[in-house]
């Protein structure tokens, strides 16, 4: 459901148009096309819109101006907007993905392992952008194995163990790392989720 609309049977494009954005875990295999230029990577979710194309032809002058702006805004270090994404550093590749996914005006953002393998500066940058989206009112679903990252960014934490959600916790100061750890290890389980476990076993 996105903005009250059921999208489970829609195509990927329709889901994106409905306001879904997704930053995948694997930024090389899924998030970008390494041999394509930065411009081609950024316009992939918008090239068909009227600003970007006219009578079946892509307006590259407009697209490149658009991408130059985004390169500046997202601090992507690259010699040009036509530079192949695969030759950029990991942090810059991730910023190209952010520049695309965060500027499509999403209402739901699914973000997977956004800082995996990045340097401290880039991590800081990614966190700032995610917080920015939060304040703009977008729903962010952060999927991460980095506990510090989750504690920094999340409002509410769902802990999963063995493929199931075992706890739902509010992220406040009182929350102890130890407590999350116990849920993660399967030592503890919140009662409302235990029910699910029991009924699953019977079935």
């Amino acid at each position, binding site marked *: 459901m996105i903005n009250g609309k059921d999208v489970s049977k829609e*195509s*990927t*494009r329709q*889901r*994106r148009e409905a306001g879904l954005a*997704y930053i*995948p875990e694997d930024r090389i*295999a*899924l*998030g*970008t*096309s*390494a*041999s*394509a230029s930065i411009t*081609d990577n950024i316009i*992939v*979710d918008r*090239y*068909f819109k009227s600003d970007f*194309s006219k009578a*079946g*032809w*892509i307006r*590259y002058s407009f697209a490149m101006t658009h991408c130059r702006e985004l390169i500046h805004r997202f601090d992507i270090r690259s010699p040009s907007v036509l530079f192949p994404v695969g030759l950029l550093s990991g942090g810059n590749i991730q910023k190209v993905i952010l520049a695309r996914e965060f500027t499509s005006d999403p209402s739901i953002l699914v973000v997977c392992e956004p800082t995996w393998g990045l340097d401290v500066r880039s991590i800081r940058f990614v966190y700032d952008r995610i917080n920015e989206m939060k304040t703009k009112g977008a729903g962010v679903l952060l999927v991460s194995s980095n506990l510090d990252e989750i504690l920094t960014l999340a409002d509410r934490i769902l802990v999963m163990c063995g493929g199931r959600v075992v706890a739902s916790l509010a992220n406040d100061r009182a929350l102890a790392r130890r407590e999350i750890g116990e849920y993660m290890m399967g030592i503890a389980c919140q009662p409302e989720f235990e029910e699910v476990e029991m009924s699953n076993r019977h079935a």
Partner: protein
Amino acid sequence: MRKTLISLMTVAIALAVGVLAIALTSSSPREALKYFFTGPFLNAYFFGNMITRAIPLILTGLAASIAFSASAFNLGLEGQVYFGAIAGTLLGLTMGSVPVWLTCVTIMIVSFAVGGGIAAISGYLKAKWKVNELISSLLVSYTLINIGDALLEGPFRDPRAGLAASSYMDSAIRFPRILMPSNLHAGLFLVLAIAVFVFLAIRFSRLGYEIRITGSNISFGAYAGIHVRKVVILAMAISGALAGLAGMVDVLGVHGRVIRGFSSGYGWNGIAVALIARRNPILVIPAALFFAFLTSGAEVSSFFTDMSPEIARIIQASIFYLVTAEGLLTFLKKRREATS
């Protein structure tokens, strides 16, 4: 830059193999080599015929390039060329009192559509049931070649002709000759225009963009919302359509009728042309000219010396080995990088 160098190396090594083969087989290798390299430029006849040879190869080279750009392999070019030409010619023979230009345009459109339809079958099977398009296009193509041969031997054979061929189409339909006394015909301009258009379309059109993205990383295309299955079918269809047109242009420009097996090799050489040109539609033009030069050089040389015209095949085969080996190496390297 490095890639261009590899392409040039491929060509140079293949030529060296050819020179070696000529030196070993000819009794007067110096003469044979001289005619092999200079022959196509000796006079307007040889030169015009060399360019004429390149015309269908440019189209099949473009056809292969487009499919490759979408990471689809259309190995059925041979059948699409042949059947496109047969369908168009048969229509041309039955269309009666219609203005000549209309007949000409119609039969080109029909050959375009028939070639495209044949290739679209393989594209559809791939999209729908993940049937490997490499195999399906190849098998469909072989079947169609045999059906085409049967048609030309049987129902559509001109009883007055000494070989298995259809009747001649009205000579007014055919493309005008532009370099007498050679076979060079006005289809050249059409083909060059198509090459430029394909180049622009792949770079700047919406479908071209979708083809490039799908070909460079299909998971990325699907993730971003491109209808990748549709793109693969379309790329195959356009590829087949250009192949069908290649056969028809050759018939309209050179033969005036379909002769059994007239297009044999157009498809395979088109694939080699696309590989040398690295899928770049503009570079397909010089690559096709180079292939035509090899065939023409060997032909001229065999006129004047005891050299066998099959030398051209040896050189083409070496090119084929080199480009496919290099393609395989790049592929393996990519896979190694992806898994490590």
